């Protein structure tokens, strides 16, 4: 079964009903759920996404989101050697992306997985590996 890594933009667009990507995000997300993909998040996306919800939609929603992610998604944890590789990868690349985005690109390439994101720069970096 193919792994799909969700990034913060995709998760937030699924959660926020007023987001301009909500409709597309919901449709794609349901397709992921119903077509048998393995849904993954990295520990850094988990932290970033929960922080964003906490900051934008309040602590209660932040906690609910954290519990939902932990109960329903596989969590990818980075070893120290992988963090070093991610830093090297970030150093080599010219794109203006955050460390979390580079880490996601790194793991998607490493696992030969797909990414679900609305981030244009991340999409460009990952090319065909986008769901």
């Amino acid at each position: 079964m193919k792994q799909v890594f969700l990034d913060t933009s995709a998760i937030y667009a699924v959660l926020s009903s007023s987001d301009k990507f909500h409709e597309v995000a919901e449709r794609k997300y349901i397709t992921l759920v119903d077509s048998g993909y393995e849904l993954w998040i990295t520990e850094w996306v988990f932290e970033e996404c929960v922080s964003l919800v906490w900051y934008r939609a309040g602590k209660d929603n932040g906690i609910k989101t954290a519990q939902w992610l932990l109960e329903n998604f596989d969590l990818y944890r980075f070893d120290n050697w992988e963090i070093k590789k991610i830093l090297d990868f970030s150093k080599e690349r010219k794109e203006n992306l955050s460390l979390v985005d580079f880490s996601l690109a790194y793991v998607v390439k490493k696992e030969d997985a797909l990414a679900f994101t609305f981030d244009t720069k991340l999409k460009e970096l990952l090319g065909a590996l986008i769901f």
Partner: protein
Amino acid sequence: MGTNAGIKEKVISLLMEKYEKEPLKVKRFSEQIFHLLEQVKHKRTKFSSSFFTSSETQIEKASEAIREYVNGKRLRKKELLLHLARIAGMERRNQCFYEALDKFIKDLYPKGLPNKKIHRTINKQSSEDMVVYLKKGIKLGITRGGDPVWIEIDHTELKKREGLTSMIGIFSDSDPEASIKHDKLLYGQ
């Protein structure tokens, strides 16, 4: 990735988004682009064991039959399942698809689903070539020629689906671009 490759991927990405949102509009615009995008999608999804390919004509026919079934027309079980498999296999599920699937399950189990995994044989003469995920928790074994062989309904997986979809649209944000602006919102750039 070189600049040209980057631009090419960006164009494909943008076209794929349009194709996934409004396939018929893209088809009306250009049949050639539509079929190329279908091929791109096939390449991206061919890894899935659930992949059951159908042509656009088969999809249209299946959608029409499913709509009629939802509106009360009777359909043979095998025929309905094949139509559902065509739509699910090409990841083109819509509201009507889900209504038809719910109706089918209700007809099959009028008193409600039992709390266990159910495996029902539909055709004893054949064995499945592939498995189509109708939705999380409901799988269909089917031959390459489109003959449904068995259906499996997994209560635990259906519960998991409820969990996975329970947070959709749970709150709203005053900024409709918060999803793509999250770096700026969190880190200031």
